[in-house]
């Protein structure tokens, strides 16, 4: 018999019906014990089931951990997902390829640009077209800017969940400046919807390079400040060093990717290993850490932010000129042509009318990009019509979150929080 069951039976045998002062049964109590039965048969009497989330300050997004607490110690951890399940993959079957880009914004809402770019690249791979160099360069710039904005927030949140609220807000302020660049470029701050299949929605405005450089200059100071606050602080070090250690083997076994995997010593970066958008032409280092603990993830994010800044500067230095859309009838024609030329008007109409649009040839593709959180993969199946047959996302957060039990088993509650924030799990991406 399970201890939890015996607990509730015990309370009955003592002749104390589970009623409150008004004679109503303690539904909550009952629900908790039922819950514990279904989740954990071996729950000890002194254990407490703690519902960590979905509404919890440390659950960024609606995540949930069911913690079986033995005092402060999390004896068992069960991640539960689905609280932000929006059906984004299913939506893909009813939105045209271009319309789906607005959905990708909302998956990893901290780095919408990266999602836009990843999806567009996957569709272009399926189409078998190549976008012009300028579009590639702009995409690289935007992807790296979004990596920076994601990482600095991730670092800040790591501090915040350990109590250092101030560093997070410093990072927030700088992130807003990155968002300013996105807003200038795409018109949206958080939901950018900037790419299109075969190109971009708009060209880069003139002032963006200047603003990017200003942002990157300031970024160095910010990282210095955050490091000054945290890196050598013994409280922070104690909280992070040796906490949530994940070895390289474990990282591989759990399908980890991105900065957290590199913090565990997994030397893998799709930008270098499977270059897309001309990443092979940029000079950057793929840093790794060996410890695999929360501190290593923090250091890794810092290092990657600096590398991303380096790539941004390189893009800005050699921004090519030229068109931003692929040649052919995949992208909308120039606006002036639409107003004056019949062929362009027809092309515009054919691309916009339902049932027409960009027809992607029959086939399927898996294309992955290195998003700030890791390998963001798109598995797309086309039935040759204007809407995808299937859109499947490989969200890095999903793979990171599922390792929470193994990573945090037996740790204190504070460490669970530290682990959670070091993963930077985004619920929108996780649940899709």
């Amino acid at each position: 018999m399970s201890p939890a069951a015996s607990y509730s039976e015990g309370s009955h045998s003592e002749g104390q019906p589970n009623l409150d002062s008004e004679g109503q049964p303690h539904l909550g109590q009952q629900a908790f014990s039922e819950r514990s039965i279904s989740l954990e048969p071996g729950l000890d009497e002194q254990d407490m089931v703690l519902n960590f989330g979905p509404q919890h300050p440390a659950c960024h997004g609606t995540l949930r951990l069911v913690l079986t607490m033995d005092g402060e110690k999390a004896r068992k951890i069960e991640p539960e997902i689905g609280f932000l399940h929006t059906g984004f993959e299913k939506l893909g079957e009813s939105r045209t390829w271009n319309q789906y880009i607005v959905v990708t914004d909302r998956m990893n809402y901290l780095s919408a640009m990266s999602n836009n770019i990843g999806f567009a690249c996957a569709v272009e791979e399926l189409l078998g077209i190549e976008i012009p160099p300028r579009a590639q360069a702009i995409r690289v710039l935007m992807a790296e800017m979004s990596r920076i904005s994601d990482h600095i927030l991730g670092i800040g949140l790591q501090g915040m969940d350990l109590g250092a609220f101030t560093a997070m807000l410093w990072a927030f302020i700088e992130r807003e400046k990155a968002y300013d660049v996105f807003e200038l470029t795409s018109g949206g701050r958080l939901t950018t919807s900037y790419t299109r299949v075969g190109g971009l929605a708009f060209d880069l405005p003139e002032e963006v390079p200047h603003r990017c450089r200003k942002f990157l200059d300031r970024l160095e100071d910010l990282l210095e400040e955050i490091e000054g606050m945290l890196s050598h602080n013994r409280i922070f070090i104690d909280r992070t060093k040796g906490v949530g250690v994940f070895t390289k083997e474990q990282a591989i076994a759990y399908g980890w990717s991105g900065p957290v995997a590199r913090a565990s010593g997994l030397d893998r970066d799709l930008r270098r290993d499977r270059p897309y958008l001309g990443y092979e032409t940029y000079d950057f280092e793929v840093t790794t850490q060996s410890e695999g603990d929360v501190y290593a993830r923090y250091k890794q994010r810092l290092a990657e932010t600096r590398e991303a800044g380096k790539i941004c500067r390189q893009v800005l230095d050699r921004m090519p000129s030229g068109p931003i859309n692929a040649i052919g009838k995949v992208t909308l024609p120039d606006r002036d042509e639409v107003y004056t030329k019949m062929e362009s008007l027809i092309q515009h109409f054919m691309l916009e009318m339902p049932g027409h649009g960009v027809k992607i040839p029959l086939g399927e593709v898996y294309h992955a990009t290195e998003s700030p959180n890791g390998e963001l993969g798109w598995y797309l199946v086309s039935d040759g019509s204007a809407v995808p047959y299937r859109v499947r996302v490989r969200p890095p957060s999903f793979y990171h979150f599922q390792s929470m039990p193994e990573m945090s088993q037996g740790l204190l509650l504070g460490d669970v929080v530290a682990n959670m924030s070091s993963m930077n799990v985004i619920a929108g991406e996780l649940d899709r």
Partner: protein
Amino acid sequence: MTEFVLTPGMIGFAATILKALFVIGMALQIVPGCIYFERKIAAYVQHRIGPNRVNFTIGTLRYLMPESMRDVIPEGLARVKLIPGSLQPLADAIKLAFKEEVIPEKADKLLYNLGPMLTFIPVGTALCFLPFGATLIVPDANLFGIEIQRTVIEMSVSNVVPGMLMLLAVSSLGVYGIACGGWGSGSKYPLMAAVRAAAQMVSYEVPLGIAFLIALASVGSLDGQEIVRNQAETWHGFGWLVFRQPLAALIFLVAMFAENNRLPFDLPEAEPELVGGYHTEYTGLKFAIFFLGEYCAMILMCGLFTTLFLGGWSLGPIEPVEVFGSTIEPLITAEGGILNVLLSVAVFTVKMLSVLLLQLWIRWTLPRFRYDQLMDLGWKVLTPLALANLAITAILISKFPNFTFFA
């Protein structure tokens, strides 16, 4: 015709009531200010503005003027804010007062309601024992036919002799409020917070108490006034214990943060871990009282630190009597004179607020300890250090009873 005689008992009684009102009034004044400054400091540290909407403007003064004069203040000037956001704590208080009181279904009603009170009452009581000014001496006098007898009024609400011990004893009771609130909420996060708070406060009570002892031992008195006077008279006024016993001061400071649940040690209300901590389930006025108790405890601890280590109300080497010279009537300027006392109260307040500021400042800088690390620090570092310090102090005192380093 018998003269009406004000005996020392009568004067003392009246003075006690006045002092009590003063202390409670000050505390309740400082708390909103403290909240305001906490928010302002946090904001400025974080490159923000902080509260700046609820305040008086110069235009508000119009309502104090007769109607015909209201146009004197030009429109542009009328919009100038007087201390932007200064009324924010008031607004918060009003908001809290009007909020619905929600009692969780599974709460233990008695403990739940008792929690906030038990947090505030000990702190309020402990404030009574805090010496906040120099001793006031009312001389023999005959004013308007009323005979006043000479009375010595100590500037602390209650003047029991082992005052500091009482203070320590009473203030430690604050943990019951948190424990009751956490347990009585019938919710898991507050429960955990209560357990944490109990353990943490009991643990840090030890180094705190030992540091306290060191201070007392160094001074050789349990009387708060005596402690202050000792510090003021040693080393030409620089004999503050923070210089004489720096380690003890540091230990006291650290333990003080832990006692107050301030940031590096704010485990009972660690937001990312325990949502709101022990007051998760509280709303409205009960939450406000918790809040008030917490800030009053901060004031108390800062006051205590000031008294013990920062020379209390004394102004260091400067003697108030010298400053004002002897030309003014001794009633006012002499030791025990009223101006002197007022000045000492001001000095005490300033020192206490400085410590308070340090608390706020630290809060927005440091990350939080983990539970076991907190315990380690308390038991394995602070307690041994404090004990060692106490032992050395004890030895030195017993060997060299007149060693000026301590006395």
